[in-house]
């Protein structure tokens, strides 16, 4: 599942990059910085990324996820920091949903 989610996040970052002057370096794979102190996304492009990822997850896994949930917003290290942290966070959410 990790690779499938990573593909979704990567596709969504590529899509979001179209809105950005300074594009997130997606060639860095899971280390690609997204949001935060070293990030490339502003709040508007983060919204676009989240919407795109949620839509693709729902389509592929038939699971409606809310990425910006209480847990995400309260974590010391934001799940939106890099492609890798976001992928891992989505995996966690998917596991929680499947165990619910």
């Amino acid at each position: 599942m990790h690779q499938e989610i990573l593909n979704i996040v990567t596709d969504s970052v590529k899509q979001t990059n179209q809105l950005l002057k300074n594009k997130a370096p997606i060639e860095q794979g899971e280390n690609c910085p997204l949001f935060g102190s070293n990030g490339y996304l502003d709040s508007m492009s983060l919204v676009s990324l989240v919407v795109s990822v949620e839509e693709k997850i729902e389509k592929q896994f038939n699971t409606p996820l809310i990425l910006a949930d209480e847990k995400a917003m309260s974590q010391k290290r934001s799940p939106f920091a890099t492609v890798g942290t976001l992928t891992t966070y989505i995996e966690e959410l998917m596991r929680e949903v499947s165990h619910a």
Partner: protein
Amino acid sequence: MHKPVTLITGTRKGIGKYLAEHYVNKGHIVVGCSRSPIDWKLNHYTHFETDVADENSVRQLFQMIRKNFGRLDNLINNAGIASMNHMALTPLSTVNNILNTNVIGTFLFCREATKLMISKNQGRIVNFTTVATPLKLEGEAIYAASKAAVGSLTEVLARELAPYNITVNAVGPTPIETDLIKSVPKEKMQRLIARQAISRFGTCEDVANVIDFFLNPKSDFITGQNIYLGGV
């Protein structure tokens, strides 16, 4: 040209039911919801039994819209409840119910609708305020306050969503002869109507007229506005 997909909350009766019929007649695909089942049927209308303040049910409703229609053009946040009572005699459960339906419900639908609208880079959201707020109606403290919150939400969302070509506006009806005001004494209602510039009950047509204006594709430069009916 695709048929516009329009979601209206609180369609079981009153203004919501009228708006469902109005937009079906205008050629929209209408999705509506209410807490209890409806006793009417309409072509091109899909109904959901949804509590607007229940996040999971709201998410399921939007999942269905995404699956079946793939888009959402218009959201009309009509669902609302009121309670006429002196504040000193208002139970906390009433306060919670009013805030949950009017504020939390409006917020949840705006949030989920936005996600569908952003992917198409367009959308129209219309919220419901009330003349009870500017008229500072005694006995309607929580209702008026909840709708003041909706007014504020409308103004801020208009700015947050403008980059995605989504407009967010509000309509503030005067009293209309629906269930919402059936428990208010007639004399009190007459005194209230006398405070309007145009002293008559509002109608569902009056409300639909303002919403038609907000939904009009030509209204893409109109956002963050709250239009009160009756000249309040």
